[in-house]
Every structure is written in structure tokens, then in C-alpha cells.
């Protein structure tokens, strides 16, 4: 009981302390970096000579007390991006920008996050992340969350430093799961901590659903060869295995399993059988985009009536395959030319 009370007091004190945090402001990015504490620097990019909205937001959002509050003790700096790079203002702005790297796309408004070393770890661009209202309510919320992620990241990394082996790998995997960029080479560190990948975290980080699909479809660039017939059995086995692999991220497992669903449709599998596969994705996590798509897919694909059964389709395909093989073999036999 006493312990519980104590812990609640500590939490309350921490909350009060964090509430009393107020972001500082700097005139230049380099100055901001010098002042930066654990919450790093947050830069607001705006286009004074081409984007009026980002100029309006400079006052209504960036200089707003709520934004300062959300930014924790990060140093805030506003960096103008001029379209006319030869104007006097643009010349002056070059000093404000200093060593700040460019945003991923030259889009305004943009909010970029840097840790105290100057490494960019997150970026919010456009209304999808900042909102459409002048106060950028969504942006303020996202800034707060992002700063929270940075703190969490630091905490996990500090803890990981104290640990070794699988415990360390576990903590590093949690860092990798945060929706901000991690410092250094996490994969390498995880592999060093768990060389045999017993926990599967290295696999989790290395897994790429797109590459997984490309491998099964035997393509390097996504374009399928016109005469290519996917190996349905192989797809089924591999996708089922991925779906069961709990070391992988849920969304990755769903994405990989989608190939099996699509291929099943192409194999003329229909009705409840196909719906069953779709349901599996939904069951794994209905909140992800693929999970949300399940009801639509059931409607779209689950009710298709194919003219041929999967068996007939398979037989047809086998026949075609055999014919092509025969043709290829014949050609190979005819080939008198040695190529090297």
C-alpha cells in the first residue's frame, strides 16, 4: 500500500515537472542545436515567398503556447525556405538554416525533429500529420507523441546498455518498433546480442513483405514474366508460415499473407474457403489497414462465382506448363550453340 502511494506521488511529481517544461526558442538551427537538451530540436519549415498558409501557421501554430507545451524541452526554431534563392531574404535565411538537412520532400508546412546530435529522427509533412485547422491540433498532438517516442527510445537504449544477450536484444527490438528513426545500426546490435536469432528479432527487422512477394513471384522489379505461373503450393506454405511467425510484425504478416489470398482468388478458390483466408488476416489485427480491408474483400472476392473449379484450373495450368516444358526441352535439344 505504501509502495503504491509512493509510486503515485513520484508519478505525480514527474507529471508536474514535465508540465512545467517549456520549450525554448532559437533564431538559428545551429544555435538551437547548441542549446538542445534531451528533447533535441524541432524545426518548422515554411515558405515565405511561395506558401502563404505556412506563413499563417507560423503564428497560429508554431508560436502557439500549446505547441511549446507539446514540444517538451525541445528547442524550437523556424526555418524559412525561399523559392527565389537569389533574393536578399533567401541569402539571410541561409544562415538560419545552417547545417540543417533538407526535408524528405520540399513540402510545406513541415515539422522536423532532430536529437541533440543533430540526427533527424522524425518528420511531419502536410495536413495528414499537422491538420487543416490554423492551430494544427493534430500537429500539436503528433509533436507531443513524437517527443514521447524520443524519450522512450532513450530510456530503452539506456536500459539496453545495461543488459546483454537476449534481454538486450528484446529492448533493442522495442526501440525498432517505435515509429521514429533509431540511432546507429540496430539490426547489427540485435544480431550481436542474439547471434543465433533465437528470439527472431533480426528476422523481424529484416523481413520485407514486398521482397517476400517478389521472391515467390520470381521477379526483381515487380513485372511478372508473361509465361510465369506461380507455384501455388509454395505460396501457400510460405505465407502460412509467415502468418504463424510471431516474431514478425503483425502488419508484415498480414501483408505477406495477402499474396496467398490474391493467388487463391486467381486459382479460382471461392466462397467460404476464400473468405476463411481473408478472415485470418482480420483476426490477426482488425485495426491495421489490411485488417480493415477484410470486410470489403469478402464482399468483392468472396462472392465471385468462377466458371471452373480450382482443380480444373490447376489441371489446365499443369497441361499448359507441361506443353511449355516440352517446347523448351525441344529447343534446348536443338540448341547446337554453346554459350558462355
Amino acid at each position, binding site marked *: 500500500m505504501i509502495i503504491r502511494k509512493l509510486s503515485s506521488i513520484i508519478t505525480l511529481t514527474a507529471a508536474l515537472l514535465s508540465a512545467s517544461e517549456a520549450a525554448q526558442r532559437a533564431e538559428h538551427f545551429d544555435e538551437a542545436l547548441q542549446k538542445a537538451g534531451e528533447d533535441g530540436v524541432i524545426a518548422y519549415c515554411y515558405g515565405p515567398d511561395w506558401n502563404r498558409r505556412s506563413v499563417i501557421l507560423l503564428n497560429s501554430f508554431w508560436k502557439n503556447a500549446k505547441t511549446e507545451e507539446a514540444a517538451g524541452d525541445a528547442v524550437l526554431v523556424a526555418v524559412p525556405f525561399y523559392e527565389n534563392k537569389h533574393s536578399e531574404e533567401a541569402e539571410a535565411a541561409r544562415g538560419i538554416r545552417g547545417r540543417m538537412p533538407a526535408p524528405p520532400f520540399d513540402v510545406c508546412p513541415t515539422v522536423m525533429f532532430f536529437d541533440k546530435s543533430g540526427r533527424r529522427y522524425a518528420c511531419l509533412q502536410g495536413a*495528414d500529420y499537422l491538420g487543416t485547422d490554423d492551430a494544427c491540433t493534430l500537429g500539436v498532438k503528433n509533436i507531443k507523441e513524437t517527443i514521447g517516442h524520443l524519450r522512450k527510445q532513450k530510456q530503452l537504449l539506456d536500459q539496453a546498455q545495461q543488459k546483454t544477450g537476449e534481454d538486450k536484444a528484446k529492448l533493442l527490438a522495442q526501440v525498432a518498433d517505435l515509429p521514429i528513426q533509431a540511432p546507429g545500426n540496430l539490426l547489427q546490435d540485435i544480431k550481436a546480442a542474439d547471434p543465433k536469432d533465437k528470439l527472431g528479432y533480426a528476422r523481424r527487422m529484416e523481413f520485407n513483405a514486398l521482397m517476400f512477394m517478389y521472391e515467390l513471384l520470381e521477379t526483381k*522489379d515487380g513485372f511478372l*514474366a508473361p509465361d510465369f505461373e506461380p507455384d501455388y503450393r509454395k505460396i501457400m506454405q510460405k505465407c502460412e508460415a509467415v502468418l504463424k511467425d510471431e516474431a514478425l510484425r503483425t502488419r508484415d504478416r498480414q501483408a505477406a499473407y495477402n499474396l496467398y489470398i490474391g*493467388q487463391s482468388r486467381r486459382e479460382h478458390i471461392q466462397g467460404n474457403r476464400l473468405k476463411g483466408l481473408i478472415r485470418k488476416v482480420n483476426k490477426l489485427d482488425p485495426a491495421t489497414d489490411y485488417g480493415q480491408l477484410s470486410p470489403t474483400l469478402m464482399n468483392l472476392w468472396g462472392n465471385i462465382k468462377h466458371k471452373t473449379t480450382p482443380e480444373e484450373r490447376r489441371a489446365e495450368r499443369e497441361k499448359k506448363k507441361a506443353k511449355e516444358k516440352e517446347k523448351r526441352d525441344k529447343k534446348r535439344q536443338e540448341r547446337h550453340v554453346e*554459350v558462355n
Partner: protein
Amino acid sequence: MKLKPAHTLFLTAIIGITAGYLAAPDLLPLLRHSLNQLQQNAGEPQPTAQTPPVDTPGQDEQPTVYPTGSDDLIPDDTDDADFIADDDSRAEEDDVFFPEPEEPEEDDPEGNNTTPTRITTYKPKYQGAENEPQKPFREQTFTGKLNPTAWNSPKTLKRNLAAKVRSRLKGTDQQSVENLLLDPEVRLMLAQWELLNRSNLDTLGKLMRNTGYRESLTPLLNDLEWVSGFVYDAELQNAEIALAMIAHFQQVDPDMAKDVQHEGIKPSPWLKRRVAGAIATQFTRHGWYGEDKELTKEELAEMKKLGYFMPTLPGERKRGRNKQDVYRAARERYLYFAESIDKGLLHTSFWQLPTWQLHYVCGWKGNSPFGTASTMRWLRDNCAAPAAAYVNMCRQVPYLPTNVYGDSIHSEWYYQPFDVLYPGNFAKETRDVGAVCGGLSHFGASSACANGVPAITMGEPAHCAYAVYFDGAWHPANSLHPEERRSPHWSIWGETTWAALQLQEDMYTRGAITRNAQMIVTMASIMAENRNPLSALPLYELAVQMQPLYKPVWGLYLSTAAKTLGKRPRRWLGVNEFVCNSIAPQHPKSCALLLQESVYPGMLTALRSPKQKLAAYEAYLTNLTTNEKEQWDYRALLTAQYNSLGKALSHKEHYMQMLIDNVAKSAEFGHWVAWAVITAHQENKSMFKKVLGMLESAVARHPETKDAVCSGIIRGAEEIGDIELANLWSTGYLDSGKNMPSFEPVGGNLVSAGGLVKLGSYADDQSLVLHHAAALTEKGGSICTQPNVQAFVTVELPEKEHIGGIVLVGNGVLSVRGYLVVEISTDGKNWKHLVELSREESGKELARLNLTRNHPSAKFIRITDHAVSGEAQINLKAILVYDNKKVK
């Protein structure tokens, strides 16, 4: 003393004549004639003996008349004076059938009465006006006082306006016309008349008899700036329907007339009304319908409740769509821009765009899912960037030919499952799901347009690219091909070529002059409608003088001119020369098309003497300064010119000399030389020999363009299969220094060296032809076809051989997108399949084909690239063929 360019030209010509005479004395008359041309261009007084006959009155006193179609009877030694042979007696007869109410004076020293033979460079009345796109009439607001009810009877109004314009027009000379155009009231009347001329008057009458519509439209129709922009800044069709749309826009946006002020943005008067005009013009012109198919019953009821008058768009029923849908789609587009303007959310440069550019921004692709208001709104809020950054905006979209379900981009299933997550927002869906070139380019272009920056998607062979307008020019984006292979998907003036975009750009940079020329065309149309069409001729002439790049007027002018020119050679030559001088230097393709479509049909029946024809063709050839990058059939033009000279070889030789002299001056016309080689070869041996002599002499005279001429000769030699000629001209290019990989030869001795390469298609870079011969040696060269066009190469060996081996060296890899097939033949006609390289083998830099076991006999080897996906293209460094004999 500082030399003027004209003097420099003159001196160059004299030096050229001396050098030319030393090299080829028999060419002196031709060179002298060229000098005359130069003098004429330079505006120097001309000695009587050398005066170009086409402009010299009095020289046609003693005409030499040749019987029609008897070109071959013309003596070869006909002197230059015969150029001017004109048939006065025939001309008099012509006058009976082709009366000329505005008959110009041939000897008018001031040139006030323009005639086709006297057309000169237009000198604008207002100093500097040609360089200032908007002045002197823009920003001078003028509101007409036309009684609104006058629009109730459009037919009467049209008649009355025409009568008023005619009554004020004191003459058709430049001064009278320009003075008239200084009167804003006249300008307004002309624009209003043009609007009526482009409308269905019955429908317009119905529209304007509705008081509400009339009241909302009259302020626009009485405003000079708005009406003239609406009528002249883009091709306006179905004007009455466009007006109905604008009236609807005003119903949903009563603030259309208000000019919104934003801090930091220079206000733009009438911006929303100009935007409304641009949207209505493009939607009615293209019949663009919304993405969401037809209107629902509820929406239809809502529109009817608003009391919309919605005339049917021509051809609408054929499209099987609900007619109201086009109105809805246009209205949504307008509301999007109105909202963006009111809130100041667009790129600040949008406020300063001239009306013609507003058409590209606001009127863009109404039929595309990227063009819906909801998609554009998302693009505006998430992809606002500096104008130049839109060139890279497409990179936000991942290039994914297959989606996560394994469905191809070409199948209906690629986006369908995801539609539910992105209702009405195709741009976001594309960014999240992926796309290939088409989606990427549409994303890039629509993000620019949604933010108020002009952009346009365009087709390239097996690819889709786009272009963004900033810094006063169109900039290609996501483009894989050179500009000659780009074709914009749509345009504000009918023609959809890259060259046409450039032409428009050139035209609008002289905006004030273009507008005057357009108004003069309206004046001409008024004259033509009332009186004899020929009365419009001087006005058309003035308009083409003012703005030769305003293409629509040329058709009108030449079709009218054809009636008065009849069979008068001098006048036709004058027209021809004017067309060539005005357009050919910058736009040779547009000029060639115009000549072939509108000038040659009439002119060639009028010109009796091949020498006159030569003079006409010279006007074109001497004006070639820069080649239009666009791929175009220049061979058709040259062949038409050449064949029209009849059977007499002396004229054809003359033509060849003229062609070679002119194209050898620039490095951009090397491939035209190939045409000369091929045509001369087809003619006869003597002509072939003479043409080769001319080329040799041209190379000596123009060492700076030697490579271009050599590439033309080699290409010509390849096309006619002349091994000796190709190798002779390739000798200087055998050490091209390619980085060849090291390899072991296969078989015996190299037998391909000294052979002949022949391509299915030739790459755009003509200089690659120079390295064909080297590609048959172990030093390596270049053999490259155009992407996706006839991707094969044939090698003809100097002798028929028993092949022991073939080594193929790729430029990086042997085949980028597929695999190579090798065939052999002894006669170049019957081919035997030798081997098909697998994709893996084709993906390597080098392939050694060992044929020592069978050592087939062959003189020809053909290699074809078969693309599995994307574009097939031969791109090799070497094709080395070895015999089966013991190495010497």
C-alpha cells in the same frame, strides 16, 4: 568599323563563293543566287543583274511559257531570269474569275498595301510591345455599355456589332488597323463578335433571355479584359455552354466578382472570373465528365431546384452519359479553386498567371480521378511545394507494378480493394498503394495543378511522363525520352506535341501582339462574312505578319489567299517565302506541315518552271537554322520537293546541291544527308556520284559539321547496303576507345571487320552511327536502336563465311528487359534461327557463341532483342564474328 550581322553574312557569302568556285566552278550560278538571297535578307540594295526576280516588277515582260507538265522539256541551261517567268495574260484571265477587291499595288514603295510578295517583318507600332506580353492593353480596364437586353437576340447583336466594326474600319493597312485597335470599344466589340461567332446563337438566345443568367453574365460580357481572354486565350468551342456553366458557378459562388486580397500576395483582378472562364472552356471543349459516373437522382433534383439551364453538349448522347454530369464536374472544380483562392492556399505565383496558363492549371484533365475536387484538396494540403519541386513530387509514389495481393497494375484488382479506404482521394490511394509511370506522373502533375502551378502529363514510347511550368519554361519530369518523343496528353490548342507547347510559349511571350493579331483575324472574319471573302485577305496578311506563330490564322489566310493567287507564280513564291522566313528558322516541322498542307497544293500547280520550284524550296532550306527535336517525317517533305522537279536531272542536281549546302551548315541536320544519299542512289549512278562529290566538298567547306555529315553518309550507305561507302567514311572513327571487357575469341579469324551494320531503327543520337564500323572490330563501338521500335540489328559480312563463333558485347548488359535471339542468313532474306539466349545469359555483359561444331555458312547475322516487359532495344558495344579457319 563594327560589322553588322548582315555585313558579316555578306562577306561570308563572298568567301564562300570564291572557295566554292575553286572547288566546283560549275556551281557558281547557284552560289550567286544564294548571295542574292543573303543580300535580300540583309536588306541591302541589290545590283540589277542579281536582283531576285520574284520581287522585280517589269522583268516578266517577256515571259517564257512552258507547256503544263513538260518540265522535262525545259532546257537545262535556262538562266536565272527564267525564274520569274510569269504569265501575265493568264493572270489577266484569272482576274475575271478571281476578282481582287483589295488588289495591292505591286510597286507601292511604302508597302502599305501588303501583298503576298511584299510581306516583310512586322514592325510593331508600339516600341517594346513585342517584348512585353501584357502591354499596352492589359491592365487598362474597360467596361462596355452594351444594353444587357441586346443579348436576348444574339443574331441581331452579331449583325449590329459587325456593322459597327465595318463602319469604323477606314482601311486595311497596318496604320488604319492598329489605330482602330487602340479604341477599347472596338476591341470589346471584336471580342464579343468572336464570342457570338463561336456560339450556337439559338441556344445562347434561350440562355440570355433568362433574366437571372443575363444579369449574372452581362458584367462579364461587357468587360474587355475578360471577354478577350475568354475568347482568345485558348481554343473556345461551345461558347454558349461554357457561359451556362459560368452562370452556374456564379449561382454557387455569389462572391465570384469579389477580388480577394491576401497579405503578401499581389492582387489579381478578376481572378475568379478568369478561373471560371478557363474551367468552363476546357470542360466544354473536352466534354470532361466527373469520375463518379452519373448524377444521382437527388443531385439532379438539387440542380433542377436551383433552376439550372443546362444545354446539351454536342455529341453528348454518344458518350452515353448524363448531360448534367459535366456541369457537376466543372462546378466542383470551380468551387475547389474558388475556395483555394479565397483562403489564399495556392502557390503565390498562381495569382500572377496569365489567363492561358490558368487553362493548364484549372482546366486540367477533368476526366482523371486525379482531377476530382477531393483529390485536389488533399494534394493542396499535403503536397504544397516550390514550383520547381513538383518535378520530383512523383517520387512520393512507390513504383510497384504488382500490389500486395500479387495483382498486376494492369488488372482491375490493383486498386479496387483499397478504394474503400480512400473514398474520393485517388492521389492518396496511389501514394499508399503504389503505381507505375502513369500513376507517378499523374500524381506529380496533379499535385502541381492542385497548388496552382501549371503542369501537364505526356506520353512517351511505352511510358508516361509529365512537365511542370516554372521560370518561364516547361520542364520535363519522370521523363525517359528526349523531347522529340514527348506528346502532351492534352492541350489548350488542338495540337498535342512538345513542339506545339514550345510554339505556344513563343506566341504568348509576345502576348500583346498575339492579341492584336487575333483581333485582326476577327476583323477579317467580319469582312469575309459580309462581303467577298477576298476582302479579308489584307487583314489576314497583317495578322500573320504580326504573329506568324499564331497557327490558326495561317489556315484561314492561305485558304482565302489561294482564291486570289490562282496560278500566279510570283505571288505564290512570295507567300511561300513569307511562310518560310517566319516559321522555318525556329519551327521547321510546323513550317513543313503548313507548306505541305496549305501552300504546295496551290503553288505547285501555279509554278511551271522547275527553277521556280527550286527557288521556292530554297526559301525553306536556307531558313533551316535549328532542327526541331520532334520526330517528324522530314523525308516526306524532301521527297515531295525532289519529285516535283520532274525528270530533268540538272534540276534535281541543283536541288541536291542546295540541300547539302544548307544542311551542312548545321550539325543538327546530319540525318537529312542520309536522305540525299539514298535518293541519289535510287536515281542513278551518275547522280549518286555527284551527290557524293557534293558531300565531300561540303565536308571540306564545313569541317565543324563533319561528324554530322559523315553520320548521314554512313547511315545512307547502311540503308542502301553499300559496304564500301560505309567503311570509307567510318575510317576516321575506328578508334572510339570503348571500354571493352577482356575475352577469349571463339573460332578462328575475325571476319566481321569491314562489314556493314544495318539497324531496324536508329537511335535519336545520330552520332552513334559513326561507331558502327568500330563495333565490328575488337576495339568496340556502338550499335543502338530506338527503344521499343524495331529492336534488331543486321550485320553483313564482307564475304560469305563458315562461322566458327560470335561474340556479343553489351553496353553493360546484352539485354536490359529481355533476351537476344541470333539468326543467320546467306542472302539476307531467308533467316535461320541460330540461338536464343536465356534471360540469364542476356543479362550478362558478354556472350560467346561457339559454333565450331557446326560452323554454319552465312553472310548475314541478325540479332533481335525481345523484351519480356518494357521496351526492347539493341544496345551493344560489339558484334564480333569469327570464321572457322586456323588463326592467321
